[in-house]
């Protein structure tokens, strides 16, 4: 699923890959509508956020695997107080921490689309929504979430 309207107003800091390239495959994946996570070729363990080494077996042999962009809500917050000028007057917005059971329970952060005053339920199933920013100087795509029936 993808959208071209943005959940939060423009003007927040844009994500760019790290200078050493560690997370570049993640951000490239989002541009293609893929949710990529690191996986160790040696021990097959999942890893997120990205590191150069596998924390389980210490192999420097990680690959990037596109995983099914679904999960369940692990925790959440509703933000009211704006701490960035771009958010002034925006009103509340919802952030979710989503656990991916089919990828070693790694967790991803994004916004929960829909009514900002909705009841947010820990454990509820969600699916990813890719939000493209094609007009940015360096185009990027964010990964949000929405409730799944």
């Amino acid at each position: 699923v993808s959208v071209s309207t943005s959940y939060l107003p423009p003007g927040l800091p844009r994500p760019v890959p790290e200078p050493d390239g560690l997370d570049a495959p993640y951000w490239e994946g989002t541009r293609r509508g893929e949710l990529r996570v690191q996986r160790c070729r040696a021990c097959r363990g999942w890893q997120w956020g990205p590191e150069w080494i596998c924390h389980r077996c210490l192999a420097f042999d990680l690959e990037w695997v596109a995983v099914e962009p679904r999960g369940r809500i692990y925790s959440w917050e509703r933000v009211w107080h704006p701490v960035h000028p771009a958010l002034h007057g925006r009103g509340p917005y919802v952030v979710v921490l989503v656990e991916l059971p089919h990828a070693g329970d790694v967790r991803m952060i994004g916004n929960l689309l829909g009514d900002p005053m909705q009841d947010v339920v820990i454990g509820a199933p969600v699916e990813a929504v890719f939000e493209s920013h094609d007009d940015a100087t360096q185009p990027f795509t964010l990964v949000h979430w929405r409730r799944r029936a």
Partner: protein
Amino acid sequence: VSVRTIRGRVAVVGVGETAYYKHGQAPESEVALALRAILRACDDAGLDPRQIDGFASYSNDRNDPSRLAAALGLPELRFSNMQWGGGGGGGSAAVGNAAAAIAAGYADCVVVFRALAQGQFQRFGTAPPAATVSGEPALTFPYGVISPAQRYAMRVTRFMHDHGIRHEAQRAIALASYHHAQANPRAVMHGRPLTPEAYDASRWIVEPFRLFDCCMENDGAAALVLVSAERARDLKQRPAYLLGVAQGSEYRNAARGHNAPTYASASFTTVAPRLYAMAGLGPKDVDVVQSYENFTGGVLMSLIEHEFFAAEEANEFLTPENLIAPKGRLPLNTSGGNLAECYMHGLELQIEAVRQLRGESPNPVPDARVAMVISGPMVTPVSSMLLGSEDAL
């Protein structure tokens, strides 16, 4: 049998602070504030400031020891230490690092200090002015997870969800701090009492934190002077002996993008047992607790991880009556702490622990012999420490 412990070997012999100001209202430079607090701590100890030979701080304090030593005309600098990372989590660790230097013979008289004049620099609670972000912030900032409150709210929500903890538990922590501040003329919120009704009516910052669940931001400086236990006995004040200190965090606490395996935690689940083991004490031995409030939910988890009560008992235990000195079961943040005395990045909590042991607190706990300080919940590394009077040795 030799036991590796700092217990009883080093003491805090002097404490001092500047006036505490609302953020941006300091009348002088941050480094001048630091120097004043250090001189006041030396005066309190009855020590010539030229006897200082080391400094320890945390959270990348901007006032580096070489400059302070030059400004103070110190004959020699022997120890210069910065505790990595962790924001306010380094407060007790800095005391531990200073004490370790004294016990190891690196230095004889070490000052622990923290100075903040946020009007002169970036505030903690606002977004840094950046057009792009990379690394860990790239995973959170574009989604509006920027400030500390936004970074830690989800840990607290998950913990409260797992254990059925109600908002009233957070409220009790805020009310206790504000209550204690009313007896403390140093407190920024002195003369500004907080009622349960005002708490309940206050705006959300980020759920589950209301305005009064969040620390202030302030300007000021605070300092403590440490020397060996032998030397402490010859000085002016009743020494506050370090009984134990521990720092660190759990397995992969810093896994990026909120992937800490022990997520719903204040980060003390491994630190607290080490603290008690080093001190040879348990939670029942502690007379008074100063617990760093970045957010009340972090205090709640800190107290549970230091085993003062179980998570399932939190709703019942966390009431204002239980937390208020002198009669509460667990007097908490008896100077007003980060919520109501001053956000001196937590170092005001160490000073208050010392004053409790001397009987000089604005809200004294009768016959307090053992005082705990818990620094910086939810960050990594965190730290906590136990101080004791002569009777506790």
